[in-house]
Protein backbone atom coordinates (compact mmCIF):
# COMPACT_ATOMS: atom_id res chain seq x y z
CA UNK A 1 0.00 0.00 0.00
CA UNK A 2 1.37 3.37 -1.03
CA UNK A 3 1.89 5.85 1.80
CA UNK A 4 2.80 9.49 1.34
CA UNK A 5 4.25 11.62 4.12
CA UNK A 6 4.81 15.35 4.07
CA UNK A 7 6.78 17.50 6.42
CA UNK A 8 6.44 19.88 7.94
CA UNK A 9 2.68 19.85 8.42
CA UNK A 10 2.66 23.47 9.55
CA UNK A 11 5.05 26.13 8.37
CA UNK A 12 5.15 29.75 9.40
CA UNK A 13 7.56 31.84 7.39
CA UNK A 14 8.58 35.44 7.16
CA UNK A 15 8.28 37.19 3.85
CA UNK A 16 11.50 37.05 1.89
CA UNK A 17 12.70 33.79 3.42
CA UNK A 18 13.31 30.45 1.70
CA UNK A 19 12.03 27.07 2.79
CA UNK A 20 11.49 23.52 1.54
CA UNK A 21 8.57 21.14 1.97
CA UNK A 22 9.39 17.45 1.77
CA UNK A 23 7.27 14.63 0.40
CA UNK A 24 8.26 10.99 0.89
CA UNK A 25 6.40 8.11 -0.68
CA UNK A 26 6.74 4.46 0.19
CA UNK A 27 6.58 2.55 -3.12
CA UNK A 28 7.21 3.15 -6.79
CA UNK A 29 5.00 5.85 -8.24
CA UNK A 30 4.23 6.79 -11.83
CA UNK A 31 3.85 10.52 -11.25
CA UNK A 32 4.20 12.97 -8.40
CA UNK A 33 1.86 15.94 -8.14
CA UNK A 34 1.92 19.13 -6.14
CA UNK A 35 -1.34 20.96 -5.52
CA UNK A 36 -2.27 24.16 -3.76
CA UNK A 37 -5.50 24.59 -1.80
CA UNK A 38 -6.77 27.92 -0.50
CA UNK A 39 -9.28 27.91 2.38
CA UNK A 40 -12.71 26.86 1.18
CA UNK A 41 -11.45 26.22 -2.32
CA UNK A 42 -10.64 23.24 -4.50
CA UNK A 43 -7.19 22.07 -5.55
CA UNK A 44 -5.06 23.96 -8.03
CA UNK A 45 -2.50 21.91 -9.93
CA UNK A 46 1.03 23.31 -9.52
CA UNK A 47 3.40 20.68 -10.86
CA UNK A 48 3.46 17.13 -12.13
CA UNK A 49 6.82 15.36 -12.07
CA UNK A 50 7.37 12.32 -14.22
CA UNK A 51 10.94 11.15 -14.05
CA UNK A 52 13.97 10.97 -11.81
CA UNK A 53 15.77 14.27 -11.59
CA UNK A 54 12.80 16.24 -12.90
CA UNK A 55 12.78 19.86 -11.83
CA UNK A 56 10.02 22.35 -12.54
CA UNK A 57 9.77 25.99 -11.59
CA UNK A 58 6.94 28.47 -11.61
CA UNK A 59 7.55 31.85 -10.06
CA UNK A 60 8.79 31.44 -6.48
CA UNK A 61 8.04 27.70 -6.39
CA UNK A 62 10.34 24.94 -7.59
CA UNK A 63 9.58 21.23 -7.39
CA UNK A 64 11.98 18.34 -7.82
CA UNK A 65 11.78 14.56 -7.85
CA UNK A 66 14.25 11.88 -6.79
CA UNK A 67 12.65 8.54 -7.62
CA UNK A 68 15.50 6.53 -6.13
CA UNK A 69 15.03 8.19 -2.75
CA UNK A 70 11.23 8.33 -3.28
CA UNK A 71 11.40 11.99 -2.37
CA UNK A 72 9.97 15.14 -3.84
CA UNK A 73 10.62 18.65 -2.61
CA UNK A 74 8.78 21.92 -3.05
CA UNK A 75 11.13 24.84 -2.55
CA UNK A 76 9.83 28.30 -1.82
CA UNK A 77 12.07 31.22 -2.67
CA UNK A 78 11.65 34.68 -1.14
CA UNK A 79 8.18 33.92 0.19
CA UNK A 80 5.37 36.45 -0.19
CA UNK A 81 2.04 36.59 1.62
CA UNK A 82 0.13 35.41 -1.48
CA UNK A 83 1.79 32.01 -1.12
CA UNK A 84 -0.10 31.34 2.13
CA UNK A 85 -2.16 28.18 1.48
CA UNK A 86 -2.10 24.44 2.08
CA UNK A 87 0.18 22.46 -0.23
CA UNK A 88 -0.40 18.80 -0.97
CA UNK A 89 1.79 16.30 -2.70
CA UNK A 90 0.20 13.24 -4.23
CA UNK A 91 1.76 10.11 -5.68
CA UNK A 92 0.08 8.28 -8.54
CA UNK A 93 -0.20 4.51 -8.81
CA UNK A 94 -1.83 2.13 -11.23
CA UNK A 95 -5.07 3.30 -12.72
CA UNK A 96 -4.10 6.95 -12.20
CA UNK A 97 -5.14 6.71 -8.56
CA UNK A 98 -3.69 9.42 -6.31
CA UNK A 99 -2.56 8.99 -2.71
CA UNK A 100 -2.19 12.31 -0.96
CA UNK A 101 0.14 13.48 1.75
CA UNK A 102 -1.26 15.11 4.87
CA UNK A 103 -0.73 18.60 3.50
CA UNK A 104 1.52 21.46 4.63
CA UNK A 105 -0.27 24.54 5.91
CA UNK A 106 1.93 27.47 4.96
CA UNK A 107 1.55 30.90 6.50
CA UNK A 108 3.73 33.74 5.25
CA UNK A 109 3.94 36.63 7.68
CA UNK A 110 4.93 40.20 6.80
Amino acid at each position, binding site marked *: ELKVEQNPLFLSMQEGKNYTIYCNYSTTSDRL*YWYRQDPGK*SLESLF*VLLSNGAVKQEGRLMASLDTKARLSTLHITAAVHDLSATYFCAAETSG*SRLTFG*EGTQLTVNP
Partner: protein
Amino acid sequence: SAVISQKPSRDICQRGTSLTIQCQVDSQVTMMFWYRQQPGQSLTLIATANQGSEATYESGFVIDKFPISRPNLTFSTLTVSNMSPEDSSIYLCSVEESRAPTFRYEQYFGPGTRLTVT
Protein backbone atom coordinates in the same frame (compact mmCIF):
# COMPACT_ATOMS: atom_id res chain seq x y z
CA SER B 1 -8.99 23.20 -21.22
CA ALA B 2 -12.01 21.36 -19.85
CA VAL B 3 -14.21 22.98 -17.26
CA ILE B 4 -15.31 20.77 -14.35
CA SER B 5 -18.45 21.69 -12.45
CA GLN B 6 -20.16 20.10 -9.47
CA LYS B 7 -23.67 20.40 -8.11
CA PRO B 8 -24.60 21.25 -5.47
CA SER B 9 -21.73 23.40 -4.28
CA ARG B 10 -22.82 22.88 -0.70
CA ASP B 11 -25.69 21.32 1.21
CA ILE B 12 -26.86 20.70 4.74
CA CYS B 13 -28.63 17.38 5.15
CA GLN B 14 -30.30 15.48 7.93
CA ARG B 15 -29.02 12.24 9.31
CA GLY B 16 -30.41 9.19 7.52
CA THR B 17 -31.06 10.91 4.20
CA SER B 18 -29.12 10.60 0.93
CA LEU B 19 -27.57 13.19 -1.35
CA THR B 20 -26.54 12.83 -4.98
CA ILE B 21 -23.63 14.95 -6.17
CA GLN B 22 -23.18 15.62 -9.87
CA CYS B 23 -19.92 16.16 -11.73
CA GLN B 24 -20.04 17.56 -15.25
CA VAL B 25 -17.10 18.03 -17.62
CA ASP B 26 -17.40 20.02 -20.82
CA SER B 27 -15.25 17.58 -22.80
CA GLN B 28 -15.06 13.80 -22.98
CA VAL B 29 -12.74 12.17 -20.47
CA THR B 30 -12.05 8.52 -19.83
CA MET B 31 -10.96 8.63 -16.22
CA MET B 32 -13.06 10.23 -13.48
CA PHE B 33 -12.49 9.91 -9.78
CA TRP B 34 -14.29 10.79 -6.55
CA TYR B 35 -12.39 11.97 -3.48
CA ARG B 36 -13.41 12.88 0.04
CA GLN B 37 -11.78 15.55 2.18
CA GLN B 38 -12.87 15.45 5.79
CA PRO B 39 -12.61 18.67 7.81
CA GLY B 40 -9.00 19.73 8.22
CA GLN B 41 -7.78 16.55 6.56
CA SER B 42 -6.18 15.46 3.34
CA LEU B 43 -7.94 13.88 0.37
CA THR B 44 -8.84 10.21 0.17
CA LEU B 45 -9.85 8.42 -3.02
CA ILE B 46 -13.32 6.90 -2.81
CA ALA B 47 -13.58 5.28 -6.22
CA THR B 48 -12.68 5.36 -9.88
CA ALA B 49 -15.62 5.84 -12.23
CA ASN B 50 -15.10 4.70 -15.80
CA GLN B 51 -17.81 4.82 -18.43
CA GLY B 52 -19.23 1.46 -19.35
CA SER B 53 -18.05 -0.38 -16.28
CA GLU B 54 -18.77 -0.61 -12.58
CA ALA B 55 -16.96 1.83 -10.35
CA THR B 56 -13.88 0.52 -8.58
CA TYR B 57 -13.91 1.30 -4.87
CA GLU B 58 -10.95 1.80 -2.59
CA SER B 59 -10.51 -0.03 0.67
CA GLY B 60 -12.93 1.28 3.26
CA PHE B 61 -15.56 2.46 0.77
CA VAL B 62 -18.48 0.35 -0.41
CA ILE B 63 -21.02 0.64 -3.18
CA ASP B 64 -24.01 0.50 -0.84
CA LYS B 65 -22.83 3.63 0.94
CA PHE B 66 -21.40 5.49 -2.08
CA PRO B 67 -23.15 4.35 -5.27
CA ILE B 68 -21.64 5.91 -8.37
CA SER B 69 -22.98 6.28 -11.88
CA ARG B 70 -21.03 7.10 -15.03
CA PRO B 71 -23.54 7.15 -17.88
CA ASN B 72 -21.29 8.87 -20.42
CA LEU B 73 -17.85 10.39 -20.90
CA THR B 74 -18.80 13.84 -19.53
CA PHE B 75 -20.88 13.08 -16.44
CA SER B 76 -20.81 11.17 -13.17
CA THR B 77 -22.76 11.12 -9.94
CA LEU B 78 -21.82 10.11 -6.41
CA THR B 79 -24.54 9.39 -3.89
CA VAL B 80 -23.84 9.55 -0.18
CA SER B 81 -26.44 7.22 1.33
CA ASN B 82 -27.95 7.00 4.79
CA MET B 83 -25.84 9.90 5.94
CA SER B 84 -24.39 10.41 9.40
CA PRO B 85 -22.46 13.39 10.79
CA GLU B 86 -19.23 11.50 10.02
CA ASP B 87 -20.03 11.95 6.32
CA SER B 88 -19.63 15.72 6.66
CA SER B 89 -16.83 16.43 4.18
CA ILE B 90 -15.95 18.06 0.93
CA TYR B 91 -16.52 15.68 -1.98
CA LEU B 92 -14.46 16.36 -5.09
CA CYS B 93 -14.51 14.83 -8.50
CA SER B 94 -11.40 14.81 -10.63
CA VAL B 95 -10.64 13.98 -14.24
CA GLU B 96 -7.55 12.95 -16.07
CA GLU B 97 -6.97 14.91 -19.23
CA SER B 98 -4.28 16.53 -21.29
CA ARG B 99 -4.02 20.29 -21.46
CA ALA B 100 -1.80 22.84 -23.15
CA PRO B 101 1.06 23.55 -23.11
CA THR B 102 2.45 20.12 -22.19
CA PHE B 103 -0.49 17.97 -23.37
CA ARG B 104 0.58 15.36 -20.89
CA TYR B 105 -2.19 13.60 -18.98
CA GLU B 106 -2.69 15.12 -15.56
CA GLN B 107 -5.42 15.10 -12.94
CA TYR B 108 -7.58 18.15 -12.38
CA PHE B 109 -10.15 18.72 -9.70
CA GLY B 110 -13.66 20.12 -9.67
CA PRO B 111 -14.71 22.85 -7.23
CA GLY B 112 -16.03 20.40 -4.66
CA THR B 113 -19.31 19.89 -2.80
CA ARG B 114 -19.29 20.85 0.86
CA LEU B 115 -21.64 18.55 2.74
CA THR B 116 -22.74 19.05 6.32
CA VAL B 117 -24.83 16.35 8.00
CA THR B 118 -26.81 17.31 11.09
